[in-house]
């Protein structure tokens, strides 16, 4: 018991340390901004002939958002949303905390938008550094090359709006340790989520599945975003544990580019990117975030964007009752009703309407998806312009070997024996390889 207590104590301390490290990154950025101001170098001057412009004082921290319409009020145009009747309480944004995972072409722009909106606090996660190859996207500047994306972002954001509390966490969330650390940083002292929303701005399936798992474990709503590898389409998706489909419920949806896929060159490089598509997706993502946080408008569960055809397919995604993620199934059954809390009813797929006859959007519903015994998949027809990016997981067993159970015998030798066997087999390989 004592040992358990000690371990819990250590974990608690580790948790506090990692949180403090994140806060330190924010404080450092503030300090550096202050030092630069003292040097008069915080605002790059447009012309060397006007050095006086560099002496401009930073604005002081505001304790409350003023609705007063004066040129010096940074929030007058946002508070006007209230006067116009769009938002009932804009100031509520000051109490909101948002985590952004992936500070790249979409995440950095989303962070800047929320910073300018006066969000209470932002937690930024990324493991990468700024490179010149990123300069075709918005936000980062060439002189920030080599800095971690989190440090470069906090440095810029603190100058834009000193009212926002910033935490930067340089972390790869897909590793075993990274996963635990990510979950710890998002949790409060009672192991509940301490954020109001998580924005996924990552560029790979592994990281999305990690966010999915952590958000299921914390019962935390999140918004997923993505831009296609050919840079001409993208999507955003709302994921509410147990209420909408989790990221493992169905294979990820992608928006068809709208032109013949065979004419798109895929060879050679792994990804293209455009500041336009990324800016549009960041805008859609943060608009969704604001609507969720400040409770206005309708939040469509899935919005796709095809830039080549100026087409925005939308749909809602029900959770899969036989989702491969057990926690998702558990959360589904704990929901009082199947009603989607924030669905835009108009956006629901009308299943009675026939598919487009000429199939301009190249809808691909893999034959195995139709045959699959997974009921939720069969029920949910995909609207025009959307298709699955990965095959549907075989629900029971692989088609390659339906007798998989027979192949494996769990009563075999111990782990140590097997490791030894592998070592022997592997090392004896080396000898005959020299024959070449």
């Amino acid at each position, binding site marked *: 018991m004592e040992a358990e207590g000690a371990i819990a104590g250590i974990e608690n301390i580790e948790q506090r340390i990692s949180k403090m490290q994140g806060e330190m990154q924010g404080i450092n950025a503030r300090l550096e901004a202050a030092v630069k101001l003292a040097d008069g170098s915080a605002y790059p001057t447009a012309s060397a002939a006007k050095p006086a412009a560099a002496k401009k004082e930073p604005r002081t921290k505001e304790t409350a958002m003023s609705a007063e319409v004066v040129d010096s009020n940074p929030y007058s145009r946002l508070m006007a949303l209230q006067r116009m009747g769009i938002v009932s309480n804009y100031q509520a944004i000051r109490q909101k905390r948002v985590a952004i995972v992936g500070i790249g072409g979409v995440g950095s722009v989303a962070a800047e938008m929320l910073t300018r909106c006066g969000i209470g606090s932002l937690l930024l996660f990324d493991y*990468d550094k700024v490179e010149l190859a990123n300069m075709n996207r918005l936000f980062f500047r060439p002189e920030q090359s080599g800095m971690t994306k989190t440090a470069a972002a906090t440095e810029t954001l603190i100058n834009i709006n000193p009212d926002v509390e910033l935490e930067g966490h340089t972390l790869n*969330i*897909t*590793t*075993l340790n*990274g*996963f*635990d650390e990510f979950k710890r940083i998002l949790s409060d002292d009672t192991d509940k989520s301490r954020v109001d929303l998580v924005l996924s701005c990552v560029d790979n*399936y*592994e990281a999305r*599945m*990690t966010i999915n*798992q952590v958000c299921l474990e914390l019962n935390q709503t999140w918004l997923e975003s993505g831009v296609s*590898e050919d840079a001409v389409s993208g999507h955003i998706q709302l994921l509410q544990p147990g209420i909408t489909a989790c990221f*493992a419920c169905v*294979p990820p949806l992608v928006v068809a580019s709208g032109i013949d896929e065979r004419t798109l060159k*895929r060879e*050679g*490089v*792994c990804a293209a990117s455009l500041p336009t598509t990324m800016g549009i997706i960041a805008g859609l993502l943060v608009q969704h975030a604001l609507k969720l946080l400040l409770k206005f408008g309708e939040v469509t569960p899935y919005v796709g964007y095809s830039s080549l055809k100026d087409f925005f397919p939308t749909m809602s995604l029900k959770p899969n009752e036989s989702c*491969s*993620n057990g926690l998702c199934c558990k959360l589904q059954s704990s929901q009082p009703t199947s009603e989607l809390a924030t669905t835009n009813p108009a956006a629901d797929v009308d299943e009675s309407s026939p598919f487009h006859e000429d199939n301009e959007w190249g809808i691909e519903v893999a034959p*195995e998806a139709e045959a699959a015994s997974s009921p939720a998949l069969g029920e949910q027809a995909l609207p025009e312009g959307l298709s699955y990016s*990965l*095959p*549907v*997981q*075989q629900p029971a*067993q*692989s*088609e*390659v*070997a339906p007798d*998989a*159970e027979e*192949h*494996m*015998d*769990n009563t*075999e030798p111990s*782990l140590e024996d*097997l*490791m030894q*066997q*592998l*070592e022997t*087999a*592997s*090392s*004896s*390989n*080396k000898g*005959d*390889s020299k024959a*070449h």
Partner: protein
Amino acid sequence: MAESWDSGTKEAVKQIPLLTSIAGPRDKQEWQEKRLKQELQSLIKYIQLNKQTDSDWFTITSNKDGTHWSGKCWYVHELIKYEFDWQFDIPATYPTTAPEIEIPELDGKTAKMYRGGKICLTVHFKPLWAKNSPHFGIAHALCLGLAPWLAAEIPYMIGEGAIKVKS
């Protein structure tokens, strides 16, 4: 996708035992007692098959927990053997997501690679993994991921002069 695999790879992968445990590295006990044992059995079988057909192409070893794997892999091009160190960490969401195999020494030498030397498997391998999860394991990732990548990229890199024979 499967139609485009060469017959040798298809034959090899059919003989690698499939896995049944859905445990990942975060399910500490199940991982150790079930999944990791199956991974090892599957790998031992795959290596034995390679030996029988005189087509060994890699060595492999892991840490105690079976969460970090590394070894050497080689590819013979025009009678010359090119050998590289490979490695990967088991991701937290394994086996739902595939391992991301790295060859750090080839980082920056081909466009079919992500930062840090992760080989690009998006098109040819990830869909297969998604379809067959959790039955595919590390042996399948090597057979269907790393081996075809080497076969496609090594001759290309040699042709470009990006890699040279090690003395």
